């Protein structure tokens, strides 16, 4: 194995932490240590989020200062972000000062801005998914695509319940597809993904892949 340790400290730390946490999964005695590291991971991920927010601001600030034609959008983004942060900090301050926080303004932002946009995005997906399904056979007419299309039709047919014409067989077919062949396929896919995940993780624990090298 040809390893070039450009960042020996970082590599050593990654390997050591990885091994300790991994062992913690299998040896109960090492579980405490594993949880300490997990707590460290949670805190670090949270700090990374703040770093990320700074990154987001700097990226869009640059776009504005570049006088990019799309700089206006970036301005909207930064204003929305700063406004939310400001309101959040105000809510937190209020909570700290008066106790029993209810984050009313944060909740307002969430309920009337974030949630409607997100649910609308999900709703628009219906159109995108329908278009994708109608295009599927035009783009690839192979065994997998035809199978996919037929199963999609069968499952959707099994979902509807017409009062005038009762087709319990469609419901049974849908149920059978979900319980039998789809379960088998999903299990195989999940096991395969698990294999890939294990090797990917092990490459990092062995120091073969070092994404943290800056």
């Amino acid at each position, binding site marked *: *194995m*040809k390893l070039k340790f*450009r960042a020996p400290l970082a590599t050593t730390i990654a390997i050591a932490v990885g091994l300790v946490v991994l*062992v913690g*999964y*299998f*040896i*109960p*005695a090492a579980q405490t240590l594993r949880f300490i590291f*997990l707590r460290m*991971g949670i805190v*670090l*991920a949270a700090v*990374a*989020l*703040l*770093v*990320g*927010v700074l*990154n*987001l601001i700097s*990226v869009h600030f640059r776009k504005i200062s570049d006088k990019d034609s799309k700089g206006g*959008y970036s301005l909207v983004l930064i204003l929305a972000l700063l406004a939310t942060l400001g309101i959040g900090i105000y809510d937190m301050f209020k909570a700290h000062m008066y106790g029993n926080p209810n984050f009313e303004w944060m909740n307002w932002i969430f309920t009337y801005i974030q949630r409607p*946009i*997100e649910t609308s*995005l*999900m709703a628009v*997906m219906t159109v*995108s*998914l329908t278009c*994708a*399904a109608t295009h*599927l056979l035009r*783009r690839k007419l192979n065994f*997998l695509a035809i199978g*996919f299309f037929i199963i999609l039709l069968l499952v959707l047919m099994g979902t509807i319940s017409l009062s005038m014409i009762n087709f319990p067989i469609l419901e049974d077919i849908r149920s059978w597809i979900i319980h039998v062949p789809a379960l088998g396929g*999903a299990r*195989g*896919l*999940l*096991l*395969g*993904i698990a*294999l*890939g*995940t*294990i*090797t*990917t*993780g*092990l*490459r*990092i624990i*062995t120091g*073969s*892949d070092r*994404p*943290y*090298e*800056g």
Partner: protein
Amino acid sequence: MTITGLIGMLIVAIFFGLMIIFNVVRSGSKKARLRSISAFTKLKQAIGLAVEDGAQIHLSLGRGGVTSPQSASAFLGLSMMKQVMRIASAGDSPIVATTGNPALAILAQDTINSTSKEVNLNRRGESSEGKLAGLTPFSYAVGSMSSIRDDRVSANILAGWYGSEIIWLSEASERQNSFTLAGTAHLPAQAIMYATVGEPLIGEELFAGGAYLDAGSMHEASLNAQDVFRWVLVIGILIGILLKFAGFDQIIHNLLVGIQ
């Protein structure tokens, strides 16, 4: 240590051993022979075209948490990015990496920095960058759409952890009619991706990205180890079923569920 824990450790050890052995075997001039996956073949062509056109390559690394099991997809995405940068280093195509996780954005920037140094890209003042596009799944999806929409982007690679929001990315990319390769470990997202993307990586094919892009013998060795273990699983399942019929079901149950 419980027997379950022991089996877990054993699996790790076997995987590790297999990877090392295959790596040693592969470290010679021999190149691994792998079944052809058209997505990777076309990816190489797309990178080549991007290099020729001086176009950008957009790499989306998903929103998987770095400290969660979802991290594997993201790490693989980073490996692929490194390799794509190496392949594209012949030209002026900068890489734009977007992520939906802040820690991943830092890692993406680190990877870009180290790879740029490695291929001496920094002297040309390349503008490769890793940026955070959004902090929640859907905000990430719509946030990175602006990178996809960019006319300078000629290839989009989606490699990481996504949920059903992947359709926003894949659709935007297809609308641009740019080359799109997508792979994730999340099953519903895979189903969407399969229906919407020109070059989907289904199942565990995403995890083969490193090997197919020649990221190193360890990646190829990993695939060999996976192949070996795949058959171990198949045989294990069949033997388990036989043992179950023979009345040893409780033993198997205890072995695998014996609580960590």
